[in-house]
């Protein structure tokens, strides 16, 4: 049955007609205990969705829809390794990466948990060796600069996590500099290489397929730089200055990485769900293996919660359902991610990929064109900075936008620095102030003086606040797993496959076809007049320069 024909979908439509225009300030006036009724807690996270435009009836119907869509059965399929990535006939087992050692999960007759922990142990050995100053480069000096070369899931997750957890840097990692290079055009790597010492630089080449052209171009630039600087043999350079992380060991070998510098990935891990695997090596180098394992434990605790908790009390389920309500019944098509914590500065970029690459689909699992909206447009920025940028639109623009405020209750409490503590208080005050004004508008402040029209705040912009007790590797693991599962729940309701990304393939193919004409060589391909015009202009400009 099509989603729009489902009973609860129809009920929600009718319900939206009745309640869709309710203003949040009325909802708060009507229900004194709204926070109690519409907030959930798990572990170190508090999810407050009381500023969403929902009533008890709304959540009841949404949970009904989830049941009607067989969410529980889908969750079981996710955890047990069914090939729910149907277009690629693969499982999506990022939850397995978080299983404690000694657990069992059989896929094609093997207990994959053993392999996962073997790889973790190999990651640990590398981390310990680097931290001990015993990963030696060609000159015998210990490496002190790590460059992660990867793009997409091999970049955004580790980059975001390393920034988020940099406070918890291990003392052994002091003096270690970790950089991320992703851009295809070489501008990041070229700038950086000038400042690095080749004798003490170690490159991590992360690519699930080990064919990603962006990554391999940067890797080749790095190799060439080492060759010129060192005079060492390629064999030595590959062995002492590169670690490969990929699901394709053979390709890593063909590129030159020797077997004991290769870390394994599996095809049942999606790139954007992979920071829990060896792809997370830069995170582990930052916070140590204890920190990395704590992050996995945090995510695992969210996995258990998601699998075992009734929908009404289930954080990822409610986060997803509320978003479904916004997108499909209140017609809100934009979603802002607003961390009130500078450490989470890269969370928006990470979630842009996680949500939009997963659920930016318009074909159902059965291949039918769908007639309802799926993933909204996500964007974001550190909240306090965004206040000086796009909050104007949130408060007084014409677009309805749902917002996620992500903030920590405790920070700097043991720093002994009252100025920083005060800055944290200021940040919290701004976070609470913004979500309150977005919800209530003018009515947030009792002011009987009639304001001029341009000072009017309409309010009624829904938001969710995710409050972490404190940002630790554990709570961070919970936070990211929360969003992963939220995305999954939405995909189940929308009946789409969140684990493929066919929409990014055609561009790669087309780019390949354009290489020849851009190199001035004859090409069989024909292009539209715009492309043709741009091509000609580029070639003309290049000829003039030379």
């Amino acid at each position, binding site marked *: 049955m099509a989603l729009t024909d489902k009973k609860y979908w129809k009920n929600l439509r009718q319900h939206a007609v009745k309640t869709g225009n309710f203003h949040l300030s009325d909802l708060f006036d009507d229900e004194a205990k709204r926070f109690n009724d519409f907030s959930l807690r798990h572990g170190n996270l508090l999810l407050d969705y009381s500023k969403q435009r929902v009533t008890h009836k709304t959540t009841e119907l949404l949970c009904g829809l989830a049941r009607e869509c067989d969410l529980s059965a889908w969750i079981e399929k996710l955890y047990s390794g069914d090939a729910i990535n149907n277009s690629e006939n693969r499982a999506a087992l990022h939850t397995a990466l978080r299983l404690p050692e000694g657990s069992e999960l059989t896929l094609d007759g093997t207990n994959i948990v053993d392999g996962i922990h073997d790889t973790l142990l190999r990651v640990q050995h590398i981390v310990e060796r680097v931290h*001990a100053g*015993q990963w*030696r480069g060609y*000159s*015998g*000096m210990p490496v002190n600069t790590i460059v992660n070369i990867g793009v997409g899931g091999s970049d955004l997750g580790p980059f975001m996590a390393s920034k988020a957890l940099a406070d918890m840097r291990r003392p052994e990692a002091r003096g270690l500099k970790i950089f991320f290079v992703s851009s295809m055009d070489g501008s990041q790597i070229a700038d950086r290489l000038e400042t690095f010492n080749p004798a003490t630089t170690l490159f991590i080449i992360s690519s699930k397929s080990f064919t990603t052209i962006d990554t391999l171009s940067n890797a080749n630039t790095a190799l060439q730089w080492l060759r010129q600087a060192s005079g*060492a043999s390629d064999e*030595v350079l590959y*062995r002492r200055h590169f670690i490969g992380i990929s699901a394709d060991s053979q390709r890593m070998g063909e590129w030159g990485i020797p077997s004991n510098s290769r870390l394994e990935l599996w095809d049942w891990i999606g790139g954007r769900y992979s920071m829990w695997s060896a792809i997370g090596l830069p995170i582990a180098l930052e916070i140590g293996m204890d920190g990395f394992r704590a992050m996995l434990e945090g995510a695992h605790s969210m996995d258990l919660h998601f699998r075992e908790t009734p929908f009404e009390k289930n954080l990822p389920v409610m986060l997803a359902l509320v978003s479904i309500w916004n997108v499909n019944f209140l017609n809100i098509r934009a979603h802002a991610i607003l961390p009130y914590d500078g450490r989470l500065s890269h969370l928006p970029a990470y979630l842009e990929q996680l949500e939009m690459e997963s659920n930016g689909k318009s074909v159902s699992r059965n291949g039918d064109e769908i007639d309802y909206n799926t993933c909204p447009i996500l964007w974001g920025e550190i909240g306090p900075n965004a206040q000086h940028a796009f909050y104007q639109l949130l408060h007084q623009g014409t677009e309805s936008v749902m917002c996620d405020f992500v903030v920590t209750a405790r920070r700097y409490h043991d720093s002994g620095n009252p100025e920083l503590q005060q800055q944290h208080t200021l940040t919290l005050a701004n976070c609470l102030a913004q979500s309150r004004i977005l919800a209530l508008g003018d009515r947030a402040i009792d002011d009987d003086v009639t304001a001029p029209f341009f000072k009017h705040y309409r309010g009624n912009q829904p938001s969710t606040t995710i409050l972490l007790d404190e940002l630790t590797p554990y709570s961070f693991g919970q936070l990211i797993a929360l969003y992963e599962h939220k995305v999954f729940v939405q995909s189940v309701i929308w009946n789409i496959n969140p684990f493929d990304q066919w929409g990014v393939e055609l561009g790669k193919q087309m780019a390949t076809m354009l290489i020849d004409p851009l190199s001035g060589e004859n090409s069989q391909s024909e292009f539209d007049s715009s492309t043709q015009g741009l091509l000609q202009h580029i070639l003309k400009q290049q000829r003039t320069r030379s």
Partner: protein
Amino acid sequence: MKIAVWGEELTAWVTAGALAATGNDVNFVSHSQIKDPITLMGSSIRNEPGLRDLVVNEFEHKRMRFVQDRTALGIQTHILSMNPSQFDDAHDIVSNIASKHDGPLLVINQSHFGVGATDKLQSLLNKRNKQVVAYFAENISEGEALDRFRNPKSLILGCDVPEATLTIESLFRPFSRRVENRFVMSPKEAEFTKLSIIGMLALRIGYINELANLGELLGVDIDVIRQGMGADPRIGRHHLAPGCGFGGNTFPQTLSSLAQLLSQTTESTLMQTVLLENEKQKELPFRKLWQHYACDLHDRKIAIWGASFKPGSASLDAAPSLKVIDAIVAQQAEVRVHDPEANENVQHLYHNSPYVKTITGKYDALKNVDALLVLTEWPEYWSPDFEIMLKQMKTPLIIDGRNIFNRKQIESLGFTYYSIGR
């Protein structure tokens, strides 16, 4: 004179022994259950030339004895020979001494607590009642500690109370009669002088090492260079031997306190750089080995001659050998260590590592090895039987971290030879 000596450092034992031998009544403060001075000293101090016999003799003649705090606090003259890290303990001791005395007191501080520390201790006492803390700049060094104490080249005393200066000078007269350079200054100036001397020595060593490394790249022999340099009277020949870095206990500690003082007060990184470069220099023999074997030492066997931080000492404090052993072991290669004095300490430190073996005979250590690294210039290594060495070693490769061998001779015998800056 009745004296209480506080501290467990080499300086404390040397001072106590030497002063007892010149007729003083020396009370060595110890809380330990161990009542045998030789056991209490520990191996690295015990092996200091001449010290063991001296101390045993002084204990036998009852000019030296162990006392508890309570007894020591009643004494009027005190010597503090403590580790640079023990300033808080020294503070407590001087406070306690103050509480027991109203009349004259003399505390001679010869610990490297940093510039101004003696004045801080003085502030705990009543100077008007002739309670004085002075600073005496000891200049002993491990391996020749007793000789340096008994035959100092100069004497630097930080004391601004004339009566106390007289007392201290008479206490040290048996050793200072032939001293030409005798300086009395304020305690702070004396502390600063001592710190400056140590810094200067480190700079010289650091500089010659830098030159050696550079010379190697440019293809010049550092021995030729340093002879030329040393002939200039403004420079002189001492402390110009390149090698694989310096170690020790108080020397690096004092240097790092100087480095810290400089960086905190004037943002100067000069001494920090010297220390940092010295740490790198310690691994130089490893790097030469690493490069020789194309960055792969897995399953190799490497012999090390000399583990103590300098000849004549069994101490491994900040010794280059530790960094080299750690680096080799991290590559899962076996290390066979020989040291005339420090084998026991090496064994103690690495008893958990299956890769580190200590060997009693220096030639036995070479059995079947892929290389020999010389890290401490013990006299017995200077002229070994090269024929035996060639027979024992699987690969005749020598990495000489102390430049004790003659390159031409050794290469003519068939060895592959690397040294520092030659």
